[in-house]
């Protein structure tokens, strides 16, 4: 501990902290903008967090300046407050200030510091640097007229995915952030996971909104069906000021119904279906000498990564479609037939914690008889927007239940798909049963649970057959597993890979976790939010009576009446897909 003074008052703080962190521990929140999450991004570029340090030359950027013994820090002097205001005004002078049109409005950190520093938007007038727009990629959009060049997105892409798609281009006034060559995300090896969107302080990086598409489908009088992924219920509440980790399943269903969707389904049914197919596929591979290890294919960010970086390993991917695509295919075939609808009149909307799903749903490989399985994907954030604009008071909604016809039941195994290790655990529950004829005693496979970025592994003894499994989330963590497979050194039978660190609960379409907008959460919320959201899902699993996919009665019925058995001819047509190696920097015509 060292002794410092802030505004003349003595404090003891830990050594090695920056002024910003030390001040926070003493109860001061210095306005700051570019700094993020324990120095994950620390370019010190925005100059918003300037403070006076007695004896220092000029003002210092508190986000990068370390505290030392005897340091005297002054935050509220006229010099410091004016300098912080001036820094924000300079940022605003080169900013596209159409705030009311901006999807980040309400969660914009630039607007936040502008408000608290009292910045005037016309303090500096002059030329704006050229704008670069990218609306080509289905998942993400980029608008540099709102970029403040903080570098958070660049750091996150490197830290989470090991990719570094984004970088600074050019210099001086003409600097902008972009994939190399000012390419679109669509023409670079970007996996469209959206982690960059989650950290962008402004509206420069956003999901590619599809709310208008959904509106259009309603307008055309289509049968608009909605299905929501497990991770959405664990985070949607945050958009309505519930504490992080509050499950809001019942209210979400009520809201979806009030938005006019003809049916409200849970993607967990699709998750159970995935387990039936994927479990059978794994057994076949184990018993018939198929390609091992088999790797899960639920995460479209991961599938994109595999196609770009590991085109030689695509045989290892399960041929199963992801749960919402499977469910979409069933809705447009079996369900449509049962209801006497032409599949062309059915419009399937998926609510996802993910922006890569927006890319996935338009893959040519995910069509059955010329119909896309899913027509629109909206994120958790977009759903919140739809609820808010409809005047629905979320907190006043009753708890309602999913529509029960055909696809209403789901097991606890389906719920935990939303967290890293969940697909593995769900699959093991069913594979164990298939091989032994008995349920696994404990139900919860604690070995595969966790939130760390690293690799988790376990060996499950099934009737003397030792099944070795591994789990990774985030491509940076997954890379060593993949390199081992490439070099024939992988000891595993089954690997779960999720595109985002922590799995879907931390997806690129989830509500923003920005401490400045979360005054009631803990100071270390950026370290704990993934665990809190995961807990919401694990608790729902525990509450389910049926906790294994193969025991879901409607799944059993679907196979009895329609699909016959996992991996049947019909199941293959509807529920399985193919992959293709892709070139990262393709030739642009």
């Amino acid at each position, binding site marked *: 501990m060292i002794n410092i003074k802030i505004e003349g008052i003595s404090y003891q703080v830990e050594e090695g902290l920056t002024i910003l962190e030390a001040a926070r521990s003493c109860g001061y929140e210095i306005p700051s903008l570019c700094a993020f999450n324990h120095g994950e991004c620390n370019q010190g570029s925005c100059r918003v967090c300037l403070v006076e340090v007695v004896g220092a030359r000029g003002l210092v950027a508190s986000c990068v300046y370390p505290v030392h013994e005897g340091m005297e820090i002054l935050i509220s002097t006229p010099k410091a407050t004016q300098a912080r205001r001036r820094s924000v005004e300079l940022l605003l002078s080169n900013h596209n200030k159409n705030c009311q049109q901006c999807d980040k409005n309400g969660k914009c950190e630039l607007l936040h510091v502008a408000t608290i520093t009292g910045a005037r938007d016309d303090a500096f007038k002059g030329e704006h640097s050229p704008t670069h727009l990218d609306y080509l990629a289905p998942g993400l959009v980029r608008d540099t007229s709102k970029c403040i060049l903080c570098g958070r997105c*660049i750091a996150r892409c*490197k830290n989470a995915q090991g*990719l*570094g*798609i*984004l*970088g*600074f*281009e*050019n*210099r001086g006034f003409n600097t902008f952030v*972009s*994939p*190399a*060559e000012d390419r679109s995300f669509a023409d670079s090896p970007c996996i469209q996971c959206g982690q960059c969107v989650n950290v962008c302080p402004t509206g420069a990086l956003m999901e590619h909104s599809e709310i208008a598409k959904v509106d259009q489908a309603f307008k055309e009088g289509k049968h608009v069906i909605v299905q929501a992924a497990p991770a959405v219920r664990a985070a949607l509440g945050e958009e309505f000021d519930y504490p992080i980790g509050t499950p809001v399943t019942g209210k979400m269903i009520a809201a979806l119904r009030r938005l006019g969707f003809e049916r409200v389904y849970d993607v967990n049914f699709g998750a159970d279906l995935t387990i039936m197919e994927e479990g059978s596929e794994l057994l076949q591979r184990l018993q018939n000498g198929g390609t091992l290890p088999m790797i899960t294919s639920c995460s479209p960010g991961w599938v994109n990564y595999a196609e770009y970086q590991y085109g030689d390993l695509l045989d290892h991917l399960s041929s199963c479609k992801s749960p919402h695509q499977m469910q979409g295919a069933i809705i447009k075939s079996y369900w449509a037939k049962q209801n006497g609808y032409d599949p062309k009149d059915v419009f399937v909307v998926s609510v996802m914690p993910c922006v890569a799903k927006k890319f996935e749903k338009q893959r040519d490989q995910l069509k059955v008889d010329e119909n896309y399985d899913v027509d629109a994907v909206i994120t958790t954030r977009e759903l919140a927007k739809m609820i808010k604009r409809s005047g629905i008071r979320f907190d006043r909604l009753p708890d309602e239940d999913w529509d029960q016809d055909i696809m209403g039941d789901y097991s606890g195994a389906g719920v935990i798909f939303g967290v890293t290790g969940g697909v593995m655990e769900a699959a093991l529950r069913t594979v164990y049963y298939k091989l032994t004829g008995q349920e696994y005693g404990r139900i919860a496979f604690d070995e595969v649970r966790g939130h760390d970025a690293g690799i988790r592994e376990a060996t499950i003894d099934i009737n003397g057959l030792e099944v070795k499994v591994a789990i990774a989330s985030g491509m940076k963590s997954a890379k060593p597993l993949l390199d081992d497979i490439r070099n024939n050194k992988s000891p595993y039978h089954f690997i779960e890979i999720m595109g985002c660190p922590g799995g879907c609960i931390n997806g690129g379409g989830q509500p923003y976790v920005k401490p400045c907008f979360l005054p009631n959460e803990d100071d270390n919320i950026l370290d704990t939010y993934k665990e809190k959201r995961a807990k919401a899902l694990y608790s729902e699993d525990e509450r389910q009576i049926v906790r294994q996919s193969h025991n879901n009665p409607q799944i059993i019925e679907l196979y009895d009446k329609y699909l016959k058995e996992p991996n049947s001819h019909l199941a293959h047509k509807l529920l399985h897909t193919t992959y293709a190696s892709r*070139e*990262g*920097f*393709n*030739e642009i015509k």
Partner: protein
Amino acid sequence: MAKLNVQAVQKIKDICERYKDEKTPLMMILHDIQHEYGYIPLEVQEIVSQETGITVAEIYGVVTFYSFFSLKPKGKYVIGCCLGTACYVKGAQQVIDKFQEILHIAPGETSEDGLFTLDALRCIGACGIAPAVSINGTVYPKMEVSQVPKIIEQYRKDAEVA
């Protein structure tokens, strides 16, 4: 992406190999490639990325930051017009305008015949002889607009002979 031939790929890998023990090898690698080929296109940056583990975006950022590096092939003769403060007040803008007018290219571009590239430079440290123009390392002191056509003509003749 246009594919490079095997020799070119090997050559770039060799250049990367030269600096494998350096802590920050990127500038040296790019310098050598620029010297060897006269430009550093994206497909070359991809190879450097594979060899060094530095991301393509970061390499591209460095290439576009320094005006010394070029993304496009340069002409046989690279005309560098200094537009630093001293040269500018001595009429460098009129000089570069004249080059543009005759060659029909903007600064940073290369003429269609591949002979000339026109670069606008910041101070090249020759303020005493402002306005200064440097062509392939030869410095032309105290340039006047009227000299420009003659100089271009001379280089065209040289190119024909060669």
